[in-house]
């Protein structure tokens, strides 16, 4: 088999195995409102158009999700007035577990419960937690897989400042 044929085969293998359907940077994000997304904490979601939105998918059984909440809360406090909207989307199958998690951590940002796991399936998050930073046009600009403490906090902050600096 020649090198050319091998390259062709390799390309096909990569293309086929990477068909995952997950939301990527540049894609439009699904709507964050609906009857199946009851609010567990924070204020009602403002109209996202023209704002920077940070959507974080979490679960009560996920340790890094718990670690990320204070950082998200700080980002909400620091950039909320400048145009950032932080939305936590809980994906617990048990509503009581999600409500208890929110009650214990008492976040200041908006938290909703994706009780039918509709949104998380539509987005197809690659890991828990995953956060998506959306630009003013509603398209995904950055994707954060997992939460890696100070490193993630630093990256999020830099990316939020980049997006806020862009002209509306």
């Amino acid at each position, binding site marked *: 088999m*020649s090198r050319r044929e091998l390259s062709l085969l390799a390309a096909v293998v990569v293309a086929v195995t990477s068909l995952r359907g997950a939301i990527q940077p540049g894609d439009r994000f699904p709507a964050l409102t609906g009857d199946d997304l009851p609010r567990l904490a924070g204020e009602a979601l403002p109209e996202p158009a023209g704002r920077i939105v940070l959507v974080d998918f979490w679960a009560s*059984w996920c340790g890094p999700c718990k670690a990320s909440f204070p950082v998200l809360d700080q980002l909400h406090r620091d950039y909320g007035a400048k145009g950032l909207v932080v939305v936590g989307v809980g994906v617990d199958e048990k509503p009581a577990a999600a409500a208890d998690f929110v009650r214990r951590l008492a976040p200041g940002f908006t938290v909703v419960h994706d009780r039918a796991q509709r949104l998380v399936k539509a987005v197809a998050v690659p890991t828990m937690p995953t956060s998506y930073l959306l630009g003013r046009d509603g398209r995904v600009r950055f994707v954060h897989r997992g939460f890696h403490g100070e490193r993630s906090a630093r990256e999020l902050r830099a990316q939020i400042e980049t997006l806020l600096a862009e002209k509306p």
Partner: protein
Amino acid sequence: MRRLFRLLPLLAAVVLLGSGCAGTNLVRVQPWERATLTSYALRPDRDALHTAMMEHTFFSREAAAGGRGVGGNGCGCN
């Protein structure tokens, strides 16, 4: 072109195999469905005595002195 035709069965096999692994033929636990898997009852190290017994069996049978706690191999004298 003829070589490409010769490769077609192989390509078809790769596509079928690949789509089988990446698609819906296999039941995959998605990241948001792992609540049960993270429960305490499913932790392999939830019972300290059981863990100690398994470690003892491991280092005795595998001749790994120090069990998993140290690097390197054992002397085979356990």
